């Protein structure tokens, strides 16, 4: 790999790295398949944590590919920073757009719910129960 390692060591490093990436991928797939497992059906929290773990493992894979395979770990620090720091701008992109997407979904759900509201039949016309959903129709 880099000059600081002997040729033999760096060769071994590649296969070790490959094994690591493959193992992490297998773990990710198994965690992902939890969703389909019968026993996990009612454990929303478990699936939620499994998803977080999958994301963390993917980020680790990304770090490993950049720092070892792409040699970023052996470049001058300033070079690494000029390439890596701009990607942190994306964090805001994710926060903003995912929230926006969530807001679109809520908007649609509101419309669907209102479409399903029923007008009270004959006897109830003119009588509005303040606790009833109908009061939101406006």
């Amino acid at each position, binding site marked *: *790999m880099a000059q600081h390692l002997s*040729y033999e060591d*760096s*060769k071994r490093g*590649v*296969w070790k*790295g*490959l094994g690591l*990436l*493959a193992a992490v*991928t*297998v773990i*990710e*797939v198994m*965690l*992902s*398949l939890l*969703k*389909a497992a019968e026993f996990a059906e009612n454990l929303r929290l478990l699936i939620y944590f499994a*998803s977080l773990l*999958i*994301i963390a493992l*993917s980020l680790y*894979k*990304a770090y490993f*590919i*950049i720092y070892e*395979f*792409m040699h970023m770990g052996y*470049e*001058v620090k*300033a*070079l690494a920073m*000029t*390439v890596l720091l*701009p*990607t942190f701008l*994306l964090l805001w*992109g*994710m926060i903003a*757009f*995912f*929230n*926006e*997407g*969530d807001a*679109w*979904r809520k908007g*649609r*759900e509101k419309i669907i719910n209102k479409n*399903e509201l029923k007008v009270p039949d004959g006897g109830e016309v003119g009588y509005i129960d303040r606790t009833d959903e109908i009061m939101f129709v406006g």
Partner: protein
Amino acid sequence: MTEERDTDIIIAADQKPELTSDWAGGDRKPFRTSYGKLMMWYFLLSDAFTFAGFLIAYGALRFSSASWPVPDRVFATMPFGINEMFPNAQAPLMFVTFMSFLLIVSSGTMVRAVQEGARENKRGVVLWMLLTVLGGAGFLACQAWEWTNLIGKENMTVTTNPFGTYTEDGYYLDPETGELTDEEVATGETYLLHVAGEAHGEAEEFEEEGAYQYATTPGDYPGYVVDGLRPDGTINPAAKRFIHRKYVVERENGDTYERVQEFGPTAFGALFFGITGFHGFHVATGVIFLLIILINAGGGVYAARMNGYEMVEKIGLYWHFVDLVWVFVFLVFYLL
């Protein structure tokens, strides 16, 4: 016209550097690396932003949908009917995991090519680059099969997504009589809408002996709907005749609603083909450039440069980046 200032460094006429060597950037390289590698890094940074834009759009649209197809259900087929060996003929994520391995291994062989280049070992460079090309080509072949299966057999396109997901619990209606059955509909479960009269390579109720045969004529039947009826009652011969089963859901307050299996979010198909296609395009480009550099390396072009096969290093950076992007495509499309 500029005046001569005493802060200017006066260079004797015979000491002035040649214009041509000025363009080489001098002896002090920025960040102690070559311009070629530096510019490859910045190209990759810009490309990362392009992919990030796509993936953030994917996230926004996924968050905006009431349901999203479960990848375990969508990506459960394999070539040569290998999925038949799995329970229910479903091999969730197996094929795409194999594709990931191909790409990861080709990344490893690329590192080996760069190492051999640093030792000026031409034969080693050619051998390991050849293996890298094979890995990349294998990945593309797998993706070609995956797309063919999705489009040709499962009828998913950029505008149609037959993978729907239930958002409420309920019970199916019997397709023949329209009576309530005890066959359950579960929230979060993904189904594939079948096309009337077509086999989908799945061991489902559609292919079992003595199973109910769905009508192939468009219309509204007691327990299902077949697509293709225009609002005025005439048949649209060009429409794909998707079968939508009917089911009944019950709310907590006792109200019951009849529902029809809907198509899944359209954005799923468009995003899937758009993003994996853009990634596949990068892989294809990478394979072409790997081949060019492989041939040059074999022809001794880089040996003559005496710079430790720096060109191999640069294409290596690109190739690892393709693998890096796949980590995220794999994450959002298949794992989550």
